[in-house]
């Protein structure tokens, strides 16, 4: 868990560079001098005792009233010992930090994002361009003095598309041997609005450069204007294929800030919904992945099951895709009558449905040709790139947030974490199929556990953190006032910060929230699994053919809402 010993060791090694240690909500952050970040990072990774081999997240926070205005926050993870540590470095306006991109490749895009959003530069970064907005964009949106609605009134079409030209370094050494081809952002197989610039030699891929931001909606900025409860609606719309997972990760971070834990029944309901989310997400992935590769039937089969699940979820939460079903300290509603039978019925059928997909694909020669040995990702590369979720497990690393850092009572559930052997597209396919079976297993257990808890015990009883019951609101003025205050302003946690993550269908999905003691989050940072996973795309497609890009993108299972935020 959180590493309390690292500070002493670091302090002994770098007495100058280590400025101090902070603890908030049980999470340990070490403050490092900005210039020394690279040295410390190298040590953290290479020291056999510390061995922080994965950079989980890197983000910025803006404190305009401080002299050292920007804080860059690094979240590290050690696979070997399952430990976490946060580093923080502060810089003034105009100052820069050394890039840690050579230590953890994951930092490449994350640093670009900090540069884009805050204007903090990273020395030694090979490709420090804007990533979510475009070259030529004015200002840095996540700075506190940047208005949410932007600086210009209205909107006019630009004379040419943003980021039209591929980056300079891609174009070099062009003696007619290479060709640059643009794929997307409107392309049926890029799963939304991803654009990839491909450098080809014949049909072989020499390099691939994803261009992001075509769905950048400014969620992190917008959330800073909303109360903690209301910001949940934004989380639905990040990874819209699995909204409950997002709700869960976010709400747990909020609950950590408030220092509360929901009742058991609510936790089990959350687990059940999160696993259903995984199913809808994986079914959608299989449907589109198979469609991309040319298997149309699977699409219809998967959507059939997905609809059944969506119907169940709709009966529980009232919405198909965007439920915002969780509340601070619980869930919005108890399960409706008769839902158990529907779920049981679905669970009884589901294994035979998975067998159907397998019968269509697993031994299909075309499928094998298109997926076996395609897009291989080595485990070391995967960890270094910060890759998580089925992609990491496909490469043979048995790591799952549900097991490593259990949350919402996952430690009480029995399930396996499947892994692949070769790390190719086919293995990732197998891993996800098996995960679907395991999810069904978890749902069954959750259902049983829910039955053993008292009905109605779905949210903590705290007059500050939850609204008064509806019938009281209609009778008593106090309750009405409290209701009004709750929904117009919302509860405020004490200042501090918290990070919570879940094993989303795509990987580690986390929220890093900073509170300044007001009812609105001061910083609302999403740790986006797809964004980080997609960074491994160039590694995976080099040397393959153009058609394989489609298979590999499909097997990473991206969703642009969450990549671009």
């Amino acid at each position, binding site marked *: 868990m959180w590493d309390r010993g690292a500070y002493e060791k670091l302090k002994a090694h770098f007495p100058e560079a280590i400025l101090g240690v902070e603890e908030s909500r049980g999470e340990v952050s070490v403050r490092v001098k900005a210039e020394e970040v690279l040295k410390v990072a190298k040590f953290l990774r290479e020291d056999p005792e510390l061995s922080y081999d994965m950079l989980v997240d890197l983000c910025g926070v803006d404190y305009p009233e401080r002299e050292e205005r920007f804080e860059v926050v690094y979240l590290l993870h050690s696979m070997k010992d399952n430990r976490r540590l946060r580093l923080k470095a502060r810089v003034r306006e105009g100052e820069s930090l050394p890039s840690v991109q050579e230590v953890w490749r994951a930092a490449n895009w994350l640093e670009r994002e900090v540069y884009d959003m805050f204007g903090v530069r990273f020395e030694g970064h090979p490709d420090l361009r804007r990533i979510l907005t475009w070259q030529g964009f004015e200002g840095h949106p996540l700075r506190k003095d940047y208005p949410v609605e932007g600086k210009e009134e209205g*909107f006019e079409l630009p004379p040419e598309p*943003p980021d039209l030209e591929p980056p300079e370094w891609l174009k070099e050494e062009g003696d007619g041997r290479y060709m640059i081809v643009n794929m997307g952002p*409107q392309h049926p197989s890029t799963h939304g609005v991803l654009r990839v610039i491909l450098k080809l030699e014949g049909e072989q891929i020499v390099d691939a450069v994803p261009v992001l931001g075509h*769905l950048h909606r400014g969620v992190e900025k917008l959330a800073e204007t909303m109360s903690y409860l209301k910001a949940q609606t934004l989380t639905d*719309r990040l990874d819209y294929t699995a909204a409950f997972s997002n709700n869960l990760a976010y709400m747990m971070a909020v609950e950590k800030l408030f220092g509360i834990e929901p009742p058991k029944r609510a936790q089990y309901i959350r687990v059940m919904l999160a696993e259903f989310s995984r199913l809808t997400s994986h079914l959608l992935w299989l449907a589109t992945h198979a469609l991309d590769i040319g298997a149309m039937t699977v699409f219809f089969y998967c959507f059939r099951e997905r609809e059944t699940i969506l119907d169940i979820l709709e009966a529980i939460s009232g919405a*198909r895709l965007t439920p915002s079903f969780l509340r601070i300290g619980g869930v919005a509603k108890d399960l409706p009558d008769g839902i158990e039978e529907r779920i049981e019925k679905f669970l009884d059928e589901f294994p035979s449905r998975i067998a159907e997909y397998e019968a269509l694909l697993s031994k299909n020669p075309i499928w094998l040709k298109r997926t076996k040995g395609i897009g291989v990702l080595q485990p070391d590369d995967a960890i270094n790139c910060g890759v998580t979720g089925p992609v990491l497990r496909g490469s043979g690393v048995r790591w799952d947030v549900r097991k490593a850092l259990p949350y919402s009572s996952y430690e009480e559930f029995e399930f396996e974490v499947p892994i692949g052997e070769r790390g190719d597209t086919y293995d990732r396919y197998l891993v996800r199929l098996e995960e679907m079976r395991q999810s069904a297993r978890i749902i069954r257990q959750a259902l049983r556990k829910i039955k053993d808890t008292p009905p109605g015990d779905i949210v903590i009883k705290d007059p500050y953190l939850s609204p008064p019951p509806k019938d009281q609101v209609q009778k008593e003025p106090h309750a009405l006032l409290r209701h009004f205050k709750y929904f117009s302003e919302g509860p405020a946690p004490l200042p501090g910060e918290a990070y919570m993550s879940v094993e989303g269908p795509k990987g580690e999905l986390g929220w890093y929230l900073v509170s300044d003691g007001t009812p609105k989050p001061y910083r609302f940072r999403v740790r986006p699994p797809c964004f980080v996973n997609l960074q491994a795309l160039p590694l995976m497609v080099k040397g393959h053919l153009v058609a394989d890009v489609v298979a590999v993108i499909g097997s990473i299972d991206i969703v642009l809402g969450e990549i671009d935020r």
Partner: protein
Amino acid sequence: MGIESRIPPGILLTTLEGIVNWARKNSIWPVTFGLACCALEMMVTSSSALDIARFGAEVFRPSPRQADLMIVAGTVTKKMAYMVRRIYDQMPEPKWVIAYGTCASSGGIFRTYNVVQGVDQIVPVDVYVPGCPPRPEALLDALMKLQEKISRERFSSRPDYVRALRPEEIR
């Protein structure tokens, strides 16, 4: 005028406008083009549960050059706006646009620096569908509304209408 009685059975009389509109409204091919969350619900309409083929609109075309309908399903950002317009421009006439979801209709909940507040700032919209996301049935409803609109269309009021020159206009 009694003319119907003189025509052999099996032949139907209609105006050219009527029959062209009838053909057009029953073969609206959408361009495969999803932007965000709403696109998932758009995909559902083509799955077996709702089967958009009943309306002759199941042929999702990845190339705008073969499509008649752009379903703008999702948030249009400023970075993406140029491409949306470009896709629209690449579609041959006659063409129609459905703004599916509040994002496409008005920017939705995202009143932020990178979101275009409604796709109608970029392309003309025929049918707006509210909802975040709207149910897939709502898309079918929009499609039917569009069909109604098409069946009422006059050639002369279409933007692609080419009128013959009058004699006095010929020099």
